[in-house]
């Protein structure tokens, strides 16, 4: 194990995979300058054929990724910020998500789209959307949301090796977060949730960047003897529903924390699934901790007011534990 930052772990994954497979091509906006650091050094190492700076033209590059993948290359396409996905949406929603299905599975589309997603850095409304619910709803796109540097590396490797279009969403402003990363070669398969902390009183499902505040909340409550089980789905498509249901059946209470606008958040979807599949196990209503249906504001004090944090998670956990029928 070595202590590494999230972005370093991603950089290693990209470097190791491009070393391993000469048919990986990476392109996107400013991948040479690498403003986040994930593609740092790749241009120097692999040269201008396999690592290409594109103009700022998301409508083209999102679709180019599909064409290049259909023509036999393994593609990493850097979309920079989650919000920029919207200008590249045709390539993603109409082409990448559908070409395999529409053509009766004639082809594989091994594409990894990279983007930072979510708020927390005063980047304001057009650079702060958490885009995973939009992507998850497209159907043909896998969506990966790592919660730690070790997961970032193992999941990114899995994403690159995957034969389907995958969105790898790094939490905005969290690339510097350190964590222990295994030194040996490893891959974390997509679709396998991880129980980050065991507990018998309540299941707290935390999506991507919400894993950290969820664990902090669990730590705080543990001082009072409240045992919260923190489940990290790691990928929202495919979703490891079985792991979540198994936890809920043990704890009988569920809170989902998701940095997404409330309407059609992954939290909402999960709540519906658990009610459908494990209603009998529940002894309290499911609560969701999400972003209210508003834009992400600029001023730090405003932004903190809408993003889920330890306080709101703790409040939801306590309310769920204290719930009694008829009260």
């Amino acid at each position, binding site marked *: 194990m070595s202590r590494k930052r999230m972005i370093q772990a991603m950089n290693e994954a990209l470097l190791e995979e491009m070393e391993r497979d000469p048919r990986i091509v990476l392109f996107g906006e400013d991948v040479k300058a690498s403003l986040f650091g994930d593609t740092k050094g790749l241009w120097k190492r692999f040269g201008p054929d396999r690592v290409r700076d594109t103009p700022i033209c998301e409508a083209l590059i999102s*679709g180019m990724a599909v064409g290049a993948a*259909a023509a036999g290359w393994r593609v990493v396409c850097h979309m920079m910020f989650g919000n920029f996905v919207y200008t590249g949406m045709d*390539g993603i929603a109409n082409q990448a998500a559908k070409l*395999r*299905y529409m053509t*009766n599975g004639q082809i594989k589309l091994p594409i990894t789209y990279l983007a930072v997603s979510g708020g927390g850095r005063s980047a304001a409304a057009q650079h702060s959307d958490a885009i995973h619910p939009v992507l998850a709803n497209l159907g043909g796109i896998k969506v990966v949301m790592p919660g730690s540097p070790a997961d970032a590396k193992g999941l990114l490797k899995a994403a690159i090796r*995957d034969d389907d279009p995958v969105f790898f969403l790094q939490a905005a402003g969290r690339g510097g977060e350190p964590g222990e990363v295994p030194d040996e070669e490893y891959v974390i398969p997509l679709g396998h949730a991880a129980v980050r902390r065991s507990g018998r009183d309540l299941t707290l499902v935390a999506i991507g960047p919400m894993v950290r505040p969820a664990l902090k909340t669990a730590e705080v409550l543990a001082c009072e003897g409240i045992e919260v089980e923190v489940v990290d789905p790691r990928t929202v498509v495919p979703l490891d529903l079985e792991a979540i249901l198994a936890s809920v059946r043990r704890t009988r209470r569920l809170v989902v924390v998701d940095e997404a606008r409330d309407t059609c958040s992954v939290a909402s979807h999960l709540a519906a699934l658990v009610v459908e599949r494990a209603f009998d196990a529940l002894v309290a209503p499911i609560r969701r901790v999400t972003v209210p249906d508003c834009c992400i504001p600029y001023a730090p004090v405003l932004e903190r007011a809408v993003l889920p944090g330890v306080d709101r998670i703790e409040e939801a956990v306590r309310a769920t534990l204290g719930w009694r029928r008829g009260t």
Partner: protein
Amino acid sequence: MAAAGSNLPREELLEMYRRMMLIRRMEEQLARDCAAGKLPGPVHLYVGEEAIAVGVCQHLSDRDWITSTHRGHGHFLAKGGDPARMMAEIYGRADGICGGFGGSMHVADFSKGIIGANGIVGGGIALATGAALASQLDGDGRVAVAFFGDGAANQGVLMEALNVASLWKLPLILVCENNGFSEFSPTATVTSGSIAERARPFGVPFVEIDGNDVVAVWQAANAAVRRARDGQGPSLIEARTYRTRGHVEYEVTFITEPYRGEAEVEAWRARDPIDRFARRLREGEPGIADELARIDREIEAIVLEAVHFAEASPEPEPASARGHMFAAVARGVEP
């Protein structure tokens, strides 16, 4: 022999006639099927524009890539797609080229380099650019052709593709089929300036040609494909043609305001690319008429066989509707 005022080999000329006629007769069949209510979804016919797909695809092998449009039957057939499996696809049958999952707007056959028709106007342009990038990386002389209409020329992605393809010298041929209409709007009402000349500021060679003259198309495509194979980068061809049928079959049932006059359509019918080409072939070699008649009969049999194949094919299994969204998903996990 130098038939039809060109110096193309006779075999090539006959092959182009054969392919244009195949597209025409297949689509006339589809028009009848649509009117008879036999087709589950909309069809956009290529009648009158056949010379473009055929003149271009003559220069391509199965290893070259094409992307097409919602009006994509002609490109599919010109590139060597199977007529019977195309027919079955449009009928919504299990033996369709896409198993009934795609339909008319998504006929594709990757084994023939056909990335497919595309329901999004301009949607194929970025895909072809990506395939051109893959071809450049492979360095094996393959090229990618994006067929698109004058409507798609107004999508921003064309400018993005011209920029990147020129910058990277991609083996890309952009073929604009200017058929006079952006769906139900005459091109002049929605398009300013020249489409061909949009390539100029990007340093991309361009040419405007008579898209109803298959030999002219063949010649323009020959130059563009050679250039691309030689690593000299992209080209743009604007082929002027005319959509003699509607945007979509059966549009008369819902169009509230006529968008063109019958005299205009008639004038263009008189310039039909197949009639013109057949006339030129006969003028060049009177004895060729028998051969053309033999090809016509051959085509009739292929169309008939395609219909029988499609009609005999079962409907897809309803339970398969959720299949193949992904190439692989971890076991026991909900996609």
